[in-house]
């Protein structure tokens, strides 16, 4: 794996746009993490250092922010990230069956990535579509009213 160390001109341009909207540089750090993750898929130690340098903050402080939020990835993830809702309405409506089926098909549990890098599976707090539970998101797409029949078809759409 090649790890990009310095920020690209495109990343710097996007981060500087966010810095202009806030009173001091490090206030843009969450946006900067989102931008770099958007380009690189995750936040490596090297990326973290580059962002911290650009925002003139310590890498420790930035890491304390990066590790606080659920959707900043400090480890590499697969090409597609499955976020399966495990909150209460989906519990009542049977998300556990969907989880069992994903484990059966992809041989991964929560927090794991398939060896071919196709999927990472993560639990997710309530997706806010509780009248159509159970639900999951893959990348930016929301799937709801999940059934075991539909799940295979959905997974087959991602490569």
């Amino acid at each position: 794996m090649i790890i990009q160390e310095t920020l690209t001109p495109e990343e710097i341009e996007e981060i500087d746009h966010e810095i202009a909207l806030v009173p001091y540089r490090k206030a843009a750090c969450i946006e900067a993490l989102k931008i770099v993750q958007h380009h690189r898929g995750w936040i490596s130690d090297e990326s973290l250092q580059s962002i911290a340098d650009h925002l003139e903050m310590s890498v420790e402080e930035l890491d304390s922010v990066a590790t606080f939020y659920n959707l900043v990835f400090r480890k590499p993830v697969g090409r597609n990230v499955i976020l399966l809702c495990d909150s209460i309405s989906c519990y009542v409506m049977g998300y556990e069956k969907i989880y069992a089926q994903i484990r059966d098909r992809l041989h991964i549990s929560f927090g794991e990535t398939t060896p071919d890098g196709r999927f990472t599976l993560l639990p997710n707090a309530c997706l806010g579509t509780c009248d159509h539970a159970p639900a999951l998101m893959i990348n930016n797409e929301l799937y709801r009213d999940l059934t075991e029949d539909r799940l295979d078809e959905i997974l087959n759409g991602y490569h």
Partner: protein
Amino acid sequence: METPLTQHISSDRPPYNLRDYEKVGGYQALRKALTTMTPAEVTKLVQESDLKGRGGAGFNTGMKWSFVPMTDGTPIKYLIANADEMEPGTFKDRMLMEGNPHQFIEGMIISAYAIQANISYIFLRWAYKKAGRLLLHAMEEAYAAGYLGKNILGIGYNLEMHLHTGVGRYICGEETALLNALEGKRATPRTKPPFPQVSGLFGKPTIVNNVETFCNIPHIIQNGAQWFKDLSKGSDAGTKIYGISGRVKKPGLWELPMGVTMRELIEVHGGGMANGYEFRGALPGGASTDFLVKEHLDVKLDFKSVAAAGSRLGTGTMIILDDHTCPVGFVHNLEHFFAQESCGWCTPCREGLPWTEKTLLSIERGEGRPEDLDLLDMHTKYLGPGNTFCALAPGAMEPLQSALKYFREDFEMHITQKKCPWR
């Protein structure tokens, strides 16, 4: 029956663009407020309407605004929409934003005018991709029409609006934690006082309101305080977006007069329980509210009546516990969520919630001991109100303490039978 918030929302078509929204009277309330009313008159009208915050706490919105210092010496003020909607079982703000983004934006602009804020943020949860796209488009239209930006409607009032998408933590929905998240920090709650109305985002006076709260504002401006109060059947004013998830025939969302009974909501609007399922209880307003049970079916769902019944209206979106679902498993799922989402700042919350979760899990697996129930009772006290900076831990204890009260025999069965009777 009047349904001001949802009258122009239809799931069969995309939301109205700016021109269509204007055709049905959109932005007329903004025009009325900015060109015929002073900021103080707007605040007074909203206060008189008795609109209470729809995010869960139920505080009088106009009164909250009235705490913002309006002297000339504090020029920078912020207005923030809390669109983080992460309370499990809650999905109403998604519908309002996806269904009519202009109504929400108009409400925000009027509210910002009332406190004379010149910068506003929508703090949107990451998962709401569609709402984010629709809001960005609606904001662009509002800028182009002169409803946002410099010199709005020619009265010399300026307002910028930005969309900030969160990166996922329940605690971001807590008002002061949200401010820290917007400042690029860990989203830990702040000590109050000072209250955000005086010292909020970047230390400046700040108002944070829920999406549904903002959506009510244009209608109150257009129709007045008395009209708003008359919409209600209960002791609180207005309509409310109610919802049901779980084993009913028709889960969904409905705009109904404030104070509809739980029975009507479930039986008439939700179509009753799904075939083969019996009602055992419900969390009336999201994961952090106490269970109500059969004896409460005739309770009116307004802030005061639900409080009198021992729970909270919260977000007004109800989660049903049916007779095929294990109450211990149900509560374990909730406490797992709260333990995971604790920001870790206060010891009772950081340590007590994982302890609670593990105890519930051992009971659910048939490994519980009789004294575990005393341990859980103890936690409901030590994690209750007054021991933590914010309401996360006390909120987490609400479903637990009421489950221990109403479903105690189910907990005991797990312990005596050494297994979950539902599995």
